[in-house]
């Protein structure tokens, strides 16, 4: 008569859908405790930390942007300076080259002048030496002529005779050939 009630027909499952009032109270109490603690001590800390980090990141980004701006400015400045320096260097090189060219030209001209001068001097000296030699030869010839004449005639000649003899002897000698060849030989040596 009693099987329906004696068999613990939990399989009817009514407890599955009927809320357990005790558990409801437990749930709300436990939940409110969690809410209270999290709200008072946990969430503010996390929120604060996140805000702080966000601020730090924003600050870092700003700082990085400023730094970048500065460095870009500096870079531009350096580039300009470098450009200037390069221009100056070019200018210096150009100037140096011009100066060197000028010096070279000058040295060359100077050398040419010196050479020409030396050549002229040498020519002059040769001409002088030739002239002196010729004079000496002339003197020697005159002496020899007189000596020869005295030996031939066995008498000493007076001054007018001597002069006349020398003039005649020298007149017959052609010195021009010697004078024209001597300087060129000296220059070649």
């Amino acid at each position, binding site marked *: 008569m009693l099987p329906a009630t004696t*068999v*613990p*027909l*939990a*399989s009817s*499952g009514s*407890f*599955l*859908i*009927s*809320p*357990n*009032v*005790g*558990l*409801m*109270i*437990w*749930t*709300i109490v*436990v*939940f409110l*405790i*969690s*809410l209270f*603690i*999290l*709200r008072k*001590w*946990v*969430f503010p*800390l*996390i*929120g604060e*930390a*996140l805000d702080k*980090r966000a601020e*730090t990141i924003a600050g870092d980004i700003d700082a990085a942007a400023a730094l970048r701006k500065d460095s870009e400015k500096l870079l531009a400045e350096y580039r300009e300076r470098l450009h200037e320096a390069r221009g100056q260097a070019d200018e210096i090189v150009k100037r140096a080259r011009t100066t060197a060219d000028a010096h070279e030209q000058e040295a060359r001209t100077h050398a040419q002048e010196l050479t020409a001068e030396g050549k002229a001097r040498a020519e002059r000296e040769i001409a002088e030496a030739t002239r002196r030699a010729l004079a000496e030869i002339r003197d020697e010839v005159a002496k020899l002529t007189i000596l020869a004449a005295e030996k031939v005639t066995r008498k000493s000649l007076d001054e007018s005779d001597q002069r006349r003899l020398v003039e005649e002897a020298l007149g017959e000698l052609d010195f021009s050939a010697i004078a024209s060849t001597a300087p060129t030989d000296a220059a070649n040596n």
Partner: protein
Amino acid sequence: MSAMAAAPPAGLPTPEHGMSKGRKALLSLVGVWIGGVVVFIILFGFKSHKAPAVVSGVFSPTDEFKLDTWFKLGPVAFNKGVLYLLITVAITIGLMAYIARRLKQRPGRLQVAVEMFYNFTRGMSKENLDNDMQRKYFPLIATIFVFILVSNLIGYIPLPVDSGETFKLFGASIPSFQIYAADTNVAFPLILALGVFVLFTYEGVRHHGPIGYVKSLMPGGIKGPIVGLIFPIEILSNFLRLVSLTVRLWANLLAGHMLIAFMGGELGVLVGDQWVQWLLLPFGVAIYLFEAVLIAGLQAFIFAILTAIYLGGAVESH
């Protein structure tokens, strides 16, 4: 010459013969599964061997969700549900307080997870609530989220809490292991949903006034006799929020736990066939993973975001 020909060129992968590793592993698992069914049929046969408790109807698979009172302290009764609530609150507060006390400028993994949760919930609140409401109710929404999430997740850890069934270990009677969650009892979601319902009704009345709030439940632009038809429906749907909020969480968790239990062996016990237990085991594992990975978080999220939406909707002017 032969050695050079035999050695595979360095740096080149050796050519694969046949299937990939994953495929092989999968096929061997399927093989073990089917082989196991055959072994069970050979060992125990096709005939069902129902346990006496099943034959007599004493055993009921739903009994593990029963809340037997373990002990009482005055009027306060302790049972399995209470234990799970206490574990939930201990983990919730413990974890959050642990993180909050050790917040670092360079966060670790756990802190990142908690921060992501916090930001996600704050974003969710901001989307649905204006500034004042957000400041007021963000802690509630976040607590609902984390509280239900933790409660759901510990519900997938097998614990020795089934006081209805015991096993002997070194002579001691120990409650059987089971997976249980406080929200498989309708009391848990119902009281939370009730709380939310009361709060959003309070905010609505505070914002619109009693008459204004009732009027605000009507969609805008409806005039004439049709109001008489629409109005009761809107009132009803407002109350149905309470039901849907409750049932969604509760039914998902209860059905999930039952499915895991059934597929994990209970169905085999009921029909009395050992091979059925083995046959259904992979489905039990699959459902377990699905529930623990997806449903636990999803249901907590849905409850939290609906709270935000209802609170936001209550103070919204049509």
